[in-house]
């Protein structure tokens, strides 16, 4: 189910409308047939917003006209949404802090009147902007402020009368007040907010569902949460049956599924069941049963409603929706029965139901997004199994667990290969493959930590329980069977031979063997796994380009980014926050350079690769530049550089191998891509000629990032207090350079990035400065108000653009 809208769809929708409009103009004699053709060609998909023949993405000649108004309008509208919501949140937060702080001087009646009046006024203003003046985004932003103000009002009235903060009715009233506004205003943001409030209020209500909390009473919450999840899911699916609520349905049922899944995950852990024998029904209150009854009745009524309102037409989703809701509800009911005769030894039954349920939901709902989510959840569930499977007190535990994870990963991956020869499930193999590869990458990531390989006493085999070896053995047997099946039936599916896949499974097996050997002879093997992870990512990238499968390339890129980010924060967590930021800065610059250059080299493939690949290239170089600017910005404050103000004191990371390994990898990869780019431009006839000077622009940007990284490393190693000065100069220079590059290459997005970077730097400096002078809350309110004004101005601009090109509005 697609609830968001992809900009590509917006473009094609725009072209569709344009062709209708242009046809009309031609019939009315406003324009000639040639002119009509000219106008339509201007917005051809391949050269959207550019004249025909221009390859685009900054590769074009500088005399080309600016990017299409349609594209720019989309950019501005997104900026309005972001700035509007941020402004709204700031004002809301400011109001809450301000009023909470300076409250007692005002008489009670005045306080209540103020709260009620303010909430009503904000809501009325939001509605007027949204419905009457047709400023949808800024209107919704104000409604969000209104919802926060309503929550603040409830909590402040409670404060006046000294009602404890955790009183369950407070958040429930908040939720009940916000939910209908979400539907009346048809705002996804507001429906999402109210679902978040529902979860919050459920959390607060638990104290009324149970007489007291204990390790074992938590079990009672799981079936009730499942009942509530069934109700939310059923109500969400019901909304699909009405045009009015259809866009909002996903914001209801996906959170519903999430709530149910979390509740269920708790039940699948063996450790939770240890306390099951002490369970007593006395702790369950009447409100618990009333809530459960209402939830089940709502789920049943909503499901019946779905059937009733679809009675006149074909609705393929009805059966699967009903099965989904029934599965959740029945699972809850089974749990209740279970509590009557708690039997901790049978905890694994819940695991069977969990995995079976996931498989059922996945195959009944033929929604690719849901399937992707399910694959991720499956990995999460498998991962929690490992935690409960091996409860070892050993320094090598993460490595030992990674071995099981690798076995399961290769089993999943080989399974996905085998799925290709079974037509019925063939289309799902990508998700299983992604799950397997993610798990494999996580295991390699974990095994690549140097700290896990430094132990005082080497691990002993006999520590491992039988379950451990069972998982390892079953995993590898299934993997071998899967590869064997794929090999046997090779050529039957459209995927060619299974050489790549068999090679990948063999590599995983070899790595597991390497790990065992390392453990056996107490050799620190962590660099091997880091190199293996990098090699794996490289292979995936290569596979993606060879087979023209851009999703594979994205997947590899996300794994690299995720691994690097987690690594950076986990490995250097011992540093103070200030110091960590400074040390991560040059690495962040390297990541930025790598992403930027990858984006630029993708532009060279413009003529040959899929449209999808081409469209996203610009997003890549923009993301790279943003990462680099963010890194410089993070290092540009003066305090962290100065030991006198609690900043860096010595070269803390100077001799840590992992840090330089990480930095070397990132910068080495960036340098390799840069060299590759030079080679491509000099030797290889790229399908698209790069414009003169383009390579210089890219190279100077990358070299500038490298120089900045060098400067910051020097500053860190020599503890040079003034390093922030050149970094700030560089930040300003980067903003100016981006504006210049934007004009030179006709790229509005570069200019936007420059403006946003400048704005954020200015804003946060303002906070730093302003917090000292004003009260915190006032600074929030002023900043939020400024952002709302900016949002209003941008919205005005956007509407002026809209008037020149008609675009179909999407709901906020």
């Amino acid at each position, binding site marked *: 189910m697609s609830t968001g809208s992809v900009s590509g769809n917006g473009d094609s929708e725009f072209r569709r409308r344009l062709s209708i409009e242009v046809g009309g103009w031609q019939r009315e004699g406003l324009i000639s047939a040639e002119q009509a053709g000219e106008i339509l060609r201007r917005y051809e998909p391949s050269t959207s917003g550019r004249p025909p023949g221009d390859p685009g993405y900054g590769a074009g000649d500088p005399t080309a006209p600016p990017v299409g108004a349609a594209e720019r309008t989309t950019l501005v509208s997104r900026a309005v949404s972001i700035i509007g919501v941020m402004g709204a949140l700031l004002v809301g937060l400011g109001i*809450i802090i301000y009023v*909470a*702080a*300076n*409250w*007692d*001087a005002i008489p*009670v009646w005045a306080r*209540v009147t103020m*709260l*009620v009046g303010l*909430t*009503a006024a904000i*809501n*009325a203003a939001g*509605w007027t902007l*949204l*419905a009457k003046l047709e400023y949808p985004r800024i209107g919704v932003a104000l409604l969000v402020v*209104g919802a926060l103000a*309503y929550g603040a*009002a*409830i*909590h*402040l*009235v*409670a*404060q*006046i*009368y*000294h*009602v*404890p*903060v955790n009183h369950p009715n407070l958040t429930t*009233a908040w939720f009940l*007040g916000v939910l*209908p*506004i979400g539907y*009346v*205003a048809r705002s996804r943001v507001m429906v999402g907010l109210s679902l978040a409030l529902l979860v919050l209020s459920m959390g607060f209500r638990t104290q009324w569902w*149970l*007489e*007291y*909390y204990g390790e074992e009473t938590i079990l009672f919450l799981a079936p009730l949460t499942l009942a509530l999840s069934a109700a939310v899911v059923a109500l969400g699916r019901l909304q699909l049956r009405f045009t009015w609520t259809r866009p909002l349905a996903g914001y209801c049922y996906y959170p519903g599924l999430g709530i149910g899944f979390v509740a269920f995950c708790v039940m699948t852990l063996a450790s939770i069941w240890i306390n099951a024998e002490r369970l007593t029904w*006395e*702790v369950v209150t009447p409100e618990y049963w009333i809530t459960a009854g209402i939830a089940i009745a709502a789920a049943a009524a909503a499901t019946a409603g779905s059937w009733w309102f679809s009675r006149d037409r074909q609705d393929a989703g009805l059966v699967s929706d009903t099965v989904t809701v029934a599965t959740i509800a029945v699972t809850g009911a089974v749990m209740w029965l279970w509590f009557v005769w708690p039997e901790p030894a049978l905890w694994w039954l819940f695991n069977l139901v969990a995995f079976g349920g996931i498989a059922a939901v996945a195959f009944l709902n033929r929604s690719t997004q849901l399937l992707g989510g399910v694959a991720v959840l499956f990995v999460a569930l498998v991962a929690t199994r490992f935690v409960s499977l091996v409860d070892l007190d050993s320094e090598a535990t993460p490595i030992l667990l990674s071995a099981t994870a690798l076995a399961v990963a290769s089993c999943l991956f080989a399974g996905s290969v085998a799925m290709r020869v079974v037509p019925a499930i063939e289309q799902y193999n990508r998700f299983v493959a992604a799950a397997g590869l993610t798990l494999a990458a996580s295991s390699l990531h974990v095994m690549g930590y140097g700290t896990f390989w430094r132990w005082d006493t080497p691990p002993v085999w006999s520590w491992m329980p039988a379950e451990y070896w069972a998982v390892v053995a079953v995993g590898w047997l299934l993997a071998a069977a899967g590869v064997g099946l794929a090999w046997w039936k090779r050529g039957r599916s459209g995927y060619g031979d299974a050489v790549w896949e068999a090679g990948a499974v063999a590599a995983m097996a070899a790595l597991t063997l390497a790990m065992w050997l390392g453990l056996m002879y107490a050799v620190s093997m962590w660099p091997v796994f880091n190199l293996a992870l990098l090699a794996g990512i490289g292979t995936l990238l290569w596979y993606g380009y060879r087979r023209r499968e851009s999703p594979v390339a994205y997947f590899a890129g996300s794994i690299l980014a995720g691994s690097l980010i987690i690594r950076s924060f986990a490995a250097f967590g011992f540093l103070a926050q200030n110091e960590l930021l400074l040390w991560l800065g040059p690495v962040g610059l390297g990541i930025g350079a790598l992403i930027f250059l990858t984006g630029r080299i993708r532009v060279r493939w413009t003529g040959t690769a899929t449209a999808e690949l081409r469209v996203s290239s610009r997003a890549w170089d923009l993301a790279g530049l943003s990462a680099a600017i963010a890194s410089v910005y993070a290092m540009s404050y003066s305090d962290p550089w100065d030991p006198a103000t609690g900043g860096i004191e010595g070269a803390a990371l100077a001799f840590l191998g992992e840090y330089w390994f990480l930095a070397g990898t990132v910068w080495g990869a960036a340098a390799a891509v840069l060299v590759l780019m030079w080679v491509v431009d000099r030797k290889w006839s790229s399908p698209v000629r790069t414009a003169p000077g383009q390579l210089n622009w890219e190279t100077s940007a990358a070299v500038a990032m490298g120089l900045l990284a060098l400067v910051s490393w020097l500053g860190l190693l020599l503890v040079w207090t003034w390093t922030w000065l050149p970094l700030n100069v560089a930040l300003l220079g980067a903003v100016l350079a981006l504006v210049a590059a934007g004009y030179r290459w006709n790229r509005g997005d570069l200019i936007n990035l420059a403006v946003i970077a400048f704005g954020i730097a200015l804003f946060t400096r303002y906070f730093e400065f302003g917090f000292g002078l004003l009260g915190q809350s006032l600074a929030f309110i002023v900043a939020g108000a400024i952002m709302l004004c900016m949002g209003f101005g941008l919205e005005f601009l956007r509407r002026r653009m809209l008037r020149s090109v008609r675009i179909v509005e999407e709901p906020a």
Partner: protein
Amino acid sequence: MSRTASILFFVVVAAQMVGLVAFAGVREVAVTTGREITLQTAPVDPRSLFQGDYAILDYEIAALPEGLRDLPAGSEIFVELYECGDVWCAVWHDPVGPPSSDVFIRGVVNQRGRLDFGIGTYFVPEGTGHIIEHAEDVKVVVSLDEQGQAVIKDVLVDGAPFAPYGN
């Protein structure tokens, strides 16, 4: 947006307002019409993210007598009160039902084996929590309704009503 949507929107907003005023009204009535008694406390001082500073008030009458210490958390108890000097003290803790006497307060056994009366939180202006924390003696004036439900009316810090701004 249609006219109906507009009407619906303002009905919802009006319902929010009515709810807020009703909430304040119910508490106000409870404060003004209940029976006023004073209780002895010993405060502690943490912080709430939602509502600025507050003091947690632990009451002398929250202690359970010897025979009732084994009651499970969540049990309901009615405490009969009598006036002992300038505060009210517990006469009898009754786990069965409201006592016949007319001054009693309803409490629930908490995890720490003490009674919770729903009057454990007192909100103060930001940065003034220490006044209560460092006070020698803190008493709380509460308003009791006929079901034994208590609402905080005032806090007496060293004998005088709590006034952080000196008014």
